[in-house]
C-alpha cells in the first residue's frame, strides 16, 4: 500500500502520522512538501497531519488550503482517492472544500488536550470498517479550534447519508451534535479532530486508534 503525508511549514504531527501508517501498512509513507505541485504516482491514501500549518494565522487551515500541493490533493480526492485529515488536517480539508461545515474556536475558549471517549458512528467506510458501530474508543484530542459547526440542513444531510464517522461522549469543544469526524459524500475523505495516530502504541497508553489505520490497510489490500 502506498501512502503519502503532506508536510506544511508548521505541521507537527507529520512524523506521528507516518509512524502510524508505516505500522499498519508495513511501508514508509512518502513525505510530500507543500510546495510540490504534484503527488507521487499510484497513491492509495493521502494523509494531512495535525499541527499549526502556517502558524494557523488568518484562520486555521486557510493558508495551507491554498498551497500548491492542495490542488493536487483536491484533484486526487475528486478522482476517488482516499484522504485522511486529522486535527489541523481536518481544518485544511474543510478550507479546501473537500468536507462541509466549519471548525470554530472551542466553546470553552481554551486549548483542550486530554483523552476523550469517542463513539464510532458508522463502520461503513474504509477508515472505520474494523470498528463496530457504537464502539467506544479512547483517543486524545489536542486543539484550540475543534468546535465543528453544522447548520440544521447540513446536519440532516450528514445524518441522512450516514456521514458522521465519530461522535464525542463528553463533548470537549461544543461541536454540533457532538461530531468529532465526518466523511465526504463519496465516503473516501475523512476529517476528524481527535488524534488516532497518538493511540497506536500500548506503551503510550492506548491502541484504540490502531483499527483506523488497519481499516485503511485492509481496504487497500482488497482494492476498495
Amino acid at each position, binding site marked *: 500500500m502506498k501512502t503519502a503525508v503532506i508536510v506544511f*511549514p508548521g505541521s*507537527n504531527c507529520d*512524523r506521528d502520522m507516518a509512524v502510524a501508517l508505516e505500522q499498519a501498512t508495513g511501508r514508509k509513507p512518502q513525505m510530500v512538501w507543500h510546495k510540490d505541485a504534484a503527488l507521487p504516482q499510484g497513491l492509495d491514501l493521502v494523509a494531512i497531519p495535525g499541527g499549526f500549518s502556517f*502558524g*494557523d494565522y488568518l484562520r486555521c487551515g486557510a493558508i495551507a488550503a491554498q498551497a500548491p500541493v492542495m490542488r493536487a490533493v483536491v484533484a486526487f480526492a475528486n478522482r476517488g482517492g482516499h484522504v485522511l485529515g486529522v486535527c489541523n488536517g481536518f481544518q485544511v480539508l474543510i478550507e479546501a472544500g473537500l468536507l462541509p461545515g466549519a471548525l470554530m474556536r472551542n466553546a470553552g475558549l*481554551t486549548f483542550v488536550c486530554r483523552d476523550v471517549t469517542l463513539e464510532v458512528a458508522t463502520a461503513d467506510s474504509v477508515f472505520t470498517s474494523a470498528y463496530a458501530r457504537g464502539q467506544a474508543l479512547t483517543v486524545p484530542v489536542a486543539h484550540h479550534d475543534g468546535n465543528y459547526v453544522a447548520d440544521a440542513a447540513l446536519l440532516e444531510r450528514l445524518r441522512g447519508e450516514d456521514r458522521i464517522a465519530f461522535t464525542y461522549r463528553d463533548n470537549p469543544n461544543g461541536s454540533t451534535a457532538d461530531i468529532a469526524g465526518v466523511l465526504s459524500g463519496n465516503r473516501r475523505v475523512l476529517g476528524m479532530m481527535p488524534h488516532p495516530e*497518538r493511540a497506536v502504541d500500548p*506503551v503510550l497508553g492506548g491502541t484504540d486508534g490502531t483499527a483506523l489505520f488497519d481499516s485503511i490497510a485492509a481496504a487497500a489490500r482488497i482494492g476498495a
Partner: protein
Amino acid sequence: MSDRDTIEDLATAHGLSPDEMERIRRLLGRDPNLTELGIFSAMWNEHCSYKSSKKWLRTLPTEGPQVICGPGENAGVVDIGDGPDGRRLAVVFKMESHNHPSYIEPYQGAATGVGGILRDVFTMGARPVAAMNALSFGAPGHPRTPGLLAGVVAGVGGYGNCFGVPTVGGELRFDPAYNGNCLVNAFAAGIARADGIFYSAASGVGMPVVYLGAKTGRDGVGGATMASAEFDDTIEEKRPTVQVGDPFTEKRLMEACLELMATGAVISIQDMGAAGLTCSAVEMGDKGNLGIRLDLERVPVREANMTAYEMMLSESQERMLMVLRPEKEAEAKAVFDKWDLDFAIVGETIPEDRFLICMNGEVAADLPLKALSGEAPEYDRPWVEPPAPAPLGNIPEVDAAEALLTLMGSPNHCSRHWVYEQYDTSVGADTMRRPGSDAGIVRVHGTDKALAFTADVTPRYCKANPERGGAQAVAEAYRNLIATGARPLAVTDNLNFGNPEKPEIMGQFVGCIKGIGAACEALDMPVVSGNVSLYNETDGSAILPTPTIGAVGLLAHLSDAIGTRPQDGDALVRIGPQGGHLGASAFAHEVLGDRGGDAPAVDLTAERAAGELVLAARDAGLLRAAHDVADGGLAVAAAEMALAGGVGVTLDVSGLGALYGEDQGRYLLATSEPQALLDLATAHGVPAAVVGRFGGDAVTLAGTAVKLAELAAAHRGGLDAITSGPELASAAAHA
C-alpha cells in the same frame, strides 16, 4: 554626550552604577557613546553577567561521567547511551525564567519564555522533545492572580503547542509573596547525537557572520536591563520592553537549523535571547578568542529608521546568529529558502580583540570585545544568615479527614488539570506519562529508552531554612524521578530571588546554593545548566526564595517505568522514617494557617539509600505503583495514589504528625507482596513499614473517612474559584 552630568544620568538610566561607569571609562580611556553605553548595560546587567551570583554558582558540582557539557553554553548536555544505530545520544536541557516580562504582559511574556528556552535547546543541535514550566502566582484572592494565571498558561500553551513540543510536567503555586512578581520558569529538553552538539565559539578569521530568522524590530529594547530591576508603580510604562512571540517562525527556524547543521555548514551558532545581537555576537567572539565586526545596515529589519542602539539591544524573537563555512553558502541558502526564512551576512570574524559595529560605513561602536564579558564586574555581595523562623504553634485537634479534604481541594495542592489540559501533552507520540503524577516520561524516539522530567522546589522551606530548602528541592526532584523508575542523571537550576543588594536576600541565595550543591553532590545529579533571576521585588517586598530544580532521569528500558495505579487488595508500604515534622508543612499552612516552624531536615545518605531501594524493588518485580511523599505527607500521598487507581485506601497511622508530617526521604509503594518488600528494605538498611491497604471507596484515616468521589470532586475543583471569573475569558480570548 560630552557633558558629564548627561552621561552620568544616562548610565543610571541604563542601570549602571557610578562604579561600573568608572570601570567602563578606565577600559575605554574615554566616555562611551550612547550605543556603547547600551552595549555595556546589556552585557553587565545582572541577567547577562551573573555579577552577584557567579561567586556562588562556581561552588555547585557540575561534573560527572555522564556530563558532556556543563554550564556556560546555551544548555547542558548529558550522555544517555546508545541510540538505534549504535551511536551515542545525548539529552540537552535547561530551565530559564521569564518572570518580569510575564508580570507585565502575561501571554507574550510566558510565550517568549517558552520560545527562548526551546531556542537554547535546538541551538545546540537537539530536537526538543519535552517541555515543563514552573509557575508561581500571588494569593488566589489577589485581583491580579486570575488574569496572570490565565494569560501565562495560555501563553505557554500557545507557543509550545504550535511549536509542537509536548509539555509533560511542571509546578504551580500561589502565595501572597508573589503578588507583585509572578514567576514563569520554562524548561525544555531535546535529543541530539552525542557527536553532533553545536557550540557558540567562533573559529577562523574572515568567516561570515550570518543572521537567520525573524526580522529585527524595536520590541524588547532594554528587556535584559528591565529584568534586572525591581518593580514599582511605573511598571505599566515598561510594557513596550516585552517581546512578541511567533512560534510558527520558531518552528521553521528549528527545522532549518537542524537541516543546516546536517550539511556541515555550521561552525558555530548562538541564539539571540536577552540583549539580542549584542549578547550573541559577543558570546561567539569571546568563546572563540576572536573579534566581530557587524554592519548593521545589512540586518533584516521590520521597522524603518532603527538606530544602531536599538538594533543592538532589540530582543525581537526567533533570531539566530551563526558562523558558516563560506564554501557551504549555496547549501545554506537552499535550506533558508526552503523554509522561507530571512537570512543575511551581517558581518565577519576579525583577528583582533574588538567589537566593531558599523552602520552605513560609520562606526557606531568600537569596543574591546573580551572586556564586555570577561571584565564584567563581579560582586561578593554581603550576606547574613536569615533569621530563624518563628516556632510552630501548638497543633490543635482537627478532624483528619476534613483536613485532607481542605488540603487536597486547596489551590496549592489540588489537581492541575485546568492548567495542563491547555498544553499539548502528547504531540510527537512519544509521551508515556503526561503531567499529573511524579514526573513526565517521554520515550526516546525509535529506542527502548525513555527520559523522565520533573520540576521541584518548596519555597516555604527555602524561606524557613534556605540551606535545607535548597537541598530539599534537589531531593524531591530525585524522588520524583525514582518514583517513575528513572535513574536521575542531572539537573538544571532556575534560581529566583529578591534583591541581592539586601544582605538577608543574599543570605537566602547563599543558603539555597549550599543546600543545592550538597544534595547534587550526594545524589550524583550535577548541575549542567541554569539561570538566575534576581530583583524579584515590588515596592521593597521580595518573593519567597524559589530555586526551581529541573531534573532529568533515564529509563534504560521502557519496561523500567513504575506504575501509578494501585489495585484493590494491594498493601501500602512506607519507605523511610515514620516522621511527624509539621514545621513549614502544607498542613500547617493550609489547614492551620500557621506559617511557623523549621523546614524538615534532609538526610542525603538516607535519601540515596531509599532511592536505591525503590529501584531494586522495581527490578525485583515487587511494585505496582510508587509515589513520592511530599506536600501533605503520608495522608496526601496515599490519597493521591487512591485517586490515581480509583480505589479507596485505609491508612493505619494515627496522629496528625504521622499523617501530615513532611519528613524527607520517603515513598509510598503499592505492592501485592509486602513481606518481600519489607525484607528487601531490611537488606538495604532502609526503614519500611506496611501503613495501610487499598480497597473500598473511601480514604480512611485516624478513624474518619472521606468518600473517594467527594475527594475527587474537591481535588478536581480546587482552582475553580480562580479560573471561572471574567478575567479568564478575556485572557483566553486573547490567545
